[in-house]
């Protein structure tokens, strides 16, 4: 049999960034009609490699062939013209524009006048052909996340892309939607498209990919492995370089008294629409309670109500018996609530301030750091140095501005700050997102340690595996209401609840 045709071939790719060698002589090839997974933890170099392929960056060294022809892209436009399309993890869609407007962006046609109805029709036809249902006239902000992803795919198909690069596409989808996506991908390969699937999730990669390439710290550790000829353990080892434990040690523990009680809370989101419609839950000392929900179903608003960052229109939130709703962030902090926010850079830290300044963000008001009107800088510095060592924050010194820290170290700063405040209630939102395996393990271990220390923890996470592994109980949130409370739930059950089935209805289904 002849060598299978290559849609893309990359040889010897090298790319530097300040302080890091992102791609170190990487080879990669993609066969026509296959789904090839690019596996690696955060920071391994997958995004850089693909950004080079799509023309966003230029490689320092190396060569690229597309359909047998040598190419060199100096802009995304050239890559698109060569038939390479990327569906980004963080969607590149203009929220206030319509689907069609987003698809037409950057094209030379229409020449001048924007006659949308004609193009709406074209988009509708394309979406029919590939089974990607979406309303061309809808504005992006009105669409669900799954629908937005379809728009991103349509964007590339409209431009005649033969190679589709999916960057962590399942991060924002519910389990059922992931199945749908995989079906769509297989349909597309039958139509002759080739797909590169970037992920760090071993389960999915084993499920969908024909072949797998693994990157670690910028180098290829395994090239073009056939999915049928490998297993999760081997892949994990290739990703991380050592044996990876998949289960966490979770001790048996009896929870204590209730620390957090949420009673029938109603709240609105930023648009004035109801985000929480009667949520009630509780968390006790010494337990981790998970909150499972697809993005946009009220979990952010719930966290904000508990931490005092958002008012609620009805209901109560009690921390250790004290009412904290509708007060302020300050009173929540004073009541002993620690918050590890979803957004490390925009919310959790001040980028240009030093590590010390970021560490004292919640403790500077009280002695020993507060001395009358002044702050005892020496004490602050000493405390910071202690925390830096204890939490293994990698940085030149405590005066370093935190914008220079890596994601993992940034999270360590936030954890150090929140945990050292000895809170009674800890709320962790997506705490392991974007971190490498080592950092992820560290965070999870820390959460379990806090649980053993009899703290109450609310864990909001998109990674269902993580939720199930770490939580004692899981509440499922859908459209601002609790669908059910699970003790030993299966993925399938939780997945159904995440998409709107109430727990009571589940029993009927069985």
């Amino acid at each position, binding site marked *: 049999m002849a060598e299978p045709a290559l849609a893309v071939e990359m040889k010897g790719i090298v790319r530097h*960034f300040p302080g890091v060698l992102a791609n170190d002589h990487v080879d990669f090839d993609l066969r026509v009609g296959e789904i090839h997974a690019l596996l690696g933890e955060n920071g391994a170099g997958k995004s850089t490699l693909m950004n080079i392929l799509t023309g966003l960056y230029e490689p320092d*060294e190396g060569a690229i062939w597309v359909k047998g022809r040598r190419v060199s892209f100096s802009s995304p436009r050239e890559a698109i013209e060569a038939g390479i399309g990327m569906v980004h993890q963080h969607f590149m869609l203009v929220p206030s524009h319509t689907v069609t407007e987003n698809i037409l962006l950057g094209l030379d046609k229409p020449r001048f006048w924007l006659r949308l109805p004609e193009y709406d029709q074209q988009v509708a036809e394309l979406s029919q052909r590939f089974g990607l249902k979406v309303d061309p006239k809808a504005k992006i902000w009105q669409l669900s996340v799954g629908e937005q992803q379809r728009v991103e795919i349509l964007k590339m198909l409209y431009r005649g892309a033969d190679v589709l690069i999916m960057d962590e596409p399942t991060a924002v989808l519910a389990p059922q939607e992931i199945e749908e996506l995989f079906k769509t991908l297989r349909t597309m390969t039958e139509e002759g498209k080739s797909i590169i699937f970037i992920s760090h999730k071993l389960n999915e990669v084993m499920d969908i990919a024909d072949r797998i390439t693994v990157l670690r710290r910028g180098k290829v550790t395994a090239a073009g492995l056939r999915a049928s000829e490998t297993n999760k353990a081997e892949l994990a080892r290739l990703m991380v370089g050592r044996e990876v434990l998949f289960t966490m040690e979770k001790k048996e523990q009896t929870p204590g008294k209730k620390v957090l009680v949420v009673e029938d809370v109603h709240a609105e989101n930023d648009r004035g629409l109801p985000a929480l419609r009667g949520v009630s839950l509780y968390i006790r000392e010494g337990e981790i309670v998970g909150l499972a929900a697809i993005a946009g179903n009220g979990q952010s608003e719930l966290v904000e109500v508990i931490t005092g960052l958002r008012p609620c229109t009805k209901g109560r939130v009690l921390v250790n018996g004290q009412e904290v709703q509708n007060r302020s*962030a300050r009173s929540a902090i004073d009541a002993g609530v620690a918050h590890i926010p979803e957004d490390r850079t*925009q919310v959790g830290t001040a980028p240009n301030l030093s590590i010390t300044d970021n560490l004292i963000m*919640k403790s500077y008001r009280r002695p020993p750091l507060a001395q009358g009107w002044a702050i005892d800088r020496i004490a602050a510095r000493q405390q910071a140095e202690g925390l830096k060592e204890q939490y293994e924050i990698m940085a030149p010194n405590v005066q370093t501005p935190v914008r220079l*820290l890596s994601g993992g170290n940034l999270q360590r700063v936030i954890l150090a700050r929140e945990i050292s405040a000895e809170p009674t209630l800890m709320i962790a939102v997506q705490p392991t997102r974007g971190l490498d395996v080592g950092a992820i393990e560290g965070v999870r271990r820390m959460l379990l340690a806090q649980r053993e220390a009899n703290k109450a923890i609310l864990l909001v996470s998109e990674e269902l595996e993580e939720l199930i592994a770490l939580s004692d109980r899981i509440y499922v949130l859908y459209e601002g209401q609790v669908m059910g409370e699970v003790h030993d739930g299966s993925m399938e059950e939780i997945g159904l609840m995440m998409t709107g089935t109430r727990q009571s209805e589940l029993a009927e289904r069985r």
Partner: protein
Amino acid sequence: MTAAQPSSPRRTLYLPFRISLEQRMETPAWLPVVTSIGAVVVALIIGGIILRLVGGNPIRAYAHIFEAAFGSIGQLNDTLVKAAPLMLVGLACSLAFRMRLWNIGAEGQLYMGAFGASAVVLIPLLPPDTSPWIMLPTMMVAGILAGALWGAIPGFLKAKLNVNEIITSLMLNYVAFAWNNYWIFAHWNESGFQMSPTFPRSAWLPRLADYAEQVPFFSGMTLHLGIVFSLAAVFLIWFILYRSRWGYEIRLIGDNPRAAQYAGLNIVRNTVLVMMLSGGLAGLAGMAEIAGVVHRFQERISPGYGFSGIIVAWLAKLNPFAVVLVSILFGGLILAGREIQPSGIPSMLQGIILFCIISSEVLVRYRFSIRRQEA
């Protein structure tokens, strides 16, 4: 990949290597100082070129400026007199800018401060023979309060309604000018001239010249107590920004308001307070100009101190001590500017300096990297 992934704008391959801007990992302490000085030098060169275009002789003009500002003790005295209000306004702007509050209304706040101080004398709130120990502090308080009020308005609008403080504070400048003019023309003028009668001696800030009998060296030196206010303010602002809890809050809000909110800070309250303090300092400058320099209430009190103060703050990189130095520099520039033609030169030079400073900041945050590139 690290959390921050900066990259450069594309450049077509004309050369066998690629030049790009990359974020600096660390900033050596000397770099901002050197780039600031370099920027001023470049600005002077550019200013010189423009002077040439209008037929002037730049070297002679600059030499003249230097000599007029620092040539003799007398002139140095006059420079310091001009530097005093600049310091206060420079501090006012530094404080506000730290919190990313763009207070462009310092000029108006200065004028309102002048109004407040003058009102004490002209209404009159206190009789002319009141002891200076009572008169002057009252004028100070009135001036500070008037300036603080004028600063609080844009502060409040920004805090509560997210109204752009640049435009509101700027508009209030014009309102302040008109307000002062009304009182001068309609009520407080001296027999038809566009100014009030001279203030009684008790409303004069003491000057060095007052002590010429004891210290002959001081004769003719108009440097007044206002300079002490300015220097005291330097230490006050330094303490607030670098040592106090409030200063930490200000810096945190300025760096990342969302993080500050998350940390439990009250942004509304801090916005208004900072604008009030900023306005109050400018108001104090206004009082000092009235009581220390012009000794009457008149239409034109300031040659644009409020605007120059913005540039002073930026050139000093918002550092209180650097503000002192830069104020002296600019004070000299403004002083000399009265004598040279064309009269727009100090204003133009200030504009060019600010522009060069901003351009030079790129060198502090980024560095040029040259990488060999294979075709």
